[in-house]
């Protein structure tokens, strides 16, 4: 086995800088349009299909930055999940049409493993991420993946634990749709989504660590910076060490999605680790901020909610360990 390349390339670092600059300058409604304009929402789409012809390594870098800013954009539901499903479906006019808009994959965000489709495009799907932003849905039905216009779907937003990635319930009553591919396209999308989500989780964790470090450096109690207390230092050192492992695993997943080598192992490996690290980082962030971290005013809670929702999204760490076990010949 040759060693994977787990560094960030110069191109990837440039991409990170542009995304970060945009995220710093912009917030609110226009952000998604700007990201589309920058091309970062179509990175893995071949140039021939109107995309950037880059790969999942680059998508992962964008996901990291979006995680670090918990940006409320439909990147995961559309640019990751739906795009992966469409690229698997092959080059058809419907696929091209969908890629030109903001399609969203209509599965519960918690999906991993088995996907149960709606029967004859009648029925409901709960807790779909980014649904409110969709112009079209990719809908798993009993015999394949269908393209359905958003206008033909009843979308009911629900209060979401993570308001920066709201979920909604979808209802279909004999909705008109075009079959794009088999359900294997959905499985591929979930695999890609879980692999990319690991990088988002690394971004969330890194923000939490950085923000906490900055806070405890300046917060004084008992006449000393809180960050000079050894118990605090050691906890943050442990967290940083976890993040070193998580980042390696997330980079490895992004690389494996690109090369196709050992992908299933790499993705579940990364999800087993990164989801937990992000939650832990966010929980430490709230705790070590003390009271201020419990307020709505401080941004920490948005990261906590994103991290916790991400822990459920696209398979919990426990589910990914269960997926991994037979792949690495460690049967229960």
């Amino acid at each position, binding site marked *: 086995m040759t060693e994977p390349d787990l560094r960030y390339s110069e191109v990837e670092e440039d991409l990170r800088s542009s995304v970060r600059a945009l995220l710093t300058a912009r917030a609110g409604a226009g952000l998604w349009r700007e990201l589309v304009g920058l091309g970062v929402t179509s990175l893995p789409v071949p140039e021939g299909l109107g995309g950037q012809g880059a790969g999942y390594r680059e998508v992962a870098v964008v996901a990291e930055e979006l995680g670090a800013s918990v940006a409320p954009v439909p990147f995961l539901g559309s640019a990751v999940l739906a795009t992966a499903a469409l690229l698997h479906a092959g080059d058809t006019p419907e696929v091209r049409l969908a890629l030109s808009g903001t399609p969203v994959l209509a599965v*519960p*965000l*918690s999906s991993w493993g088995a996907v149960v489709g709606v029967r004859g495009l009648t029925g409901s799907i*709960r*807790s779909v991420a980014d649904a409110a932003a969709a112009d079209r849905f990719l809908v798993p039905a009993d015999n394949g993946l269908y393209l359905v216009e958003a206008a033909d779907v009843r979308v009911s937003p*629900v*209060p*979401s*634990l*993570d*308001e920066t990635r709201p*979920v909604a319930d979808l209802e279909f009553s004999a909705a008109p749709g075009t079959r794009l591919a088999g359900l294997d396209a959905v499985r591929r999308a979930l695999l890609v989504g879980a692999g990319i989500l690991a990088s988002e989780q690394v971004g969330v964790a890194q923000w939490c660590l950085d923000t906490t470090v900055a806070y405890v450096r300046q917060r*004084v*109690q*008992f*006449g*000393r910076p809180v960050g000079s*207390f050894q*118990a*605090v230092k050691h906890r943050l050192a442990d967290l940083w060490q976890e993040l070193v492992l998580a980042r390696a695993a997330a980079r490895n997943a992004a690389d494996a999605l690109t090369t196709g080598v050992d992908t299933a192992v790499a993705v579940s490996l990364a999800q087993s680790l990164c989801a937990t690290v992000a*939650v832990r980082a966010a*929980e430490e962030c*709230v*705790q070590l901020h*003390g*009271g*201020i*971290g*419990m*307020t*709505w*005013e401080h941004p*920490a*809670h948005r990261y*906590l*909610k994103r991290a*916790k*929702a991400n*822990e*459920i*999204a696209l398979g*919990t*760490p*426990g*589910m990914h*360990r*269960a997926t991994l076990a037979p792949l690495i010949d460690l049967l*229960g």
Partner: protein
Amino acid sequence: MSEWTDRVAALVAAHDPATTDRAAFLRARFDAGLAWVHFPEGLGGLAAPREAQREVDAALSAAGAPDNDPRRIGIGLGMAAPTILAHGTADQRRRFLRPLWTGEEVWCQLFSEPGAGSDLAALATRARRDGDDWVVTGQKVWTSSAHNARWAILLGRTDPDVPKHAGLTYFVCDMTAPGVDVRPLRQITGEAEFNEVFLSEVRVPDTDRLGDVGDGWRVARTTLMNERVAIGGRPVPREGGMVGVVARTWRDNPDRRTPDLHDRLVALWVRAEALRLAGIRLRTGSPGPEGSAMKLAFAGIAQALSGLEVELLAEDGLRYDDWTERRPAHVDYLGRGAGYRYLRAKGNSIEGGTSEILRTIIAERVLGLPAEPRADKDLPWKDLPR
């Protein structure tokens, strides 16, 4: 049967709960010394052993008597009252304790500040003497019930030129006085359980000072000790509290179970039950230092359990019950959803002494480990780094 049931019978005979106004009944109960029997006579008690209260309460409850809604007036009962009893003048005890106990006057606590959380003694709210009054200016935070409260217990800095613990004085503050501005403080749950309280030139008469000038830290220790005793003090049935809620979610969702969650849930059930058993040891044995272990363990278990519940609920865990900014009278772990429990439990390791502070207390007071070298104890407060 006993002296206590006799006394209750006499009270109920004189003031039939079925026909007596609630406040009037509670005042009569106070005057009969059956409010808190271990308090002195004339102040709602009979200088009796604290244990007798359980029998009194049971007999009153059996007789259909109203209670004083203790959850609504927890700060008054749990913190203000013991402090007033221990450090108040005869006038102050007479004035404050009766309406405090009956619930006619709600109390809140003005201790914590944005810059003084764990390091409470570093607080900056200034109290200047002006004739017979003190003039108080500063910002307090994490004040529950402030918007309903008639009175507050307040710690202020009366002398910035001495070390931090020495320059504090303890007051009772009238929450209706000019200059008191209460603003809701929204939390990560969406609720505003607490308030920020801004004090601008609030006049507090010197007669509302509790304890000597400069003796505020000693008085405050009475308050804080009573805060900590309250935790882990009540008998709880098996699966009482968070573990019961999560166990029910587990039982109701057989299709969502995984081996990973199963082992973790049983392990947490074990810890919760052991904590309950440790509580029994604590209550039946000498009071000892196990109390701080209870709070520390409680926070960790509640946080792990509520986190597991969100994971278990999967697509439902992605949802939240209600983001409305409400002002609840108390924390409602059981009535709200899993997401609320997860978020609210994060406060368990911060409020009432952070888990970090508790670990230091355990290490020094229980295990006898040496304190860290400290530079902040002897410097004048005004010269401390901030």
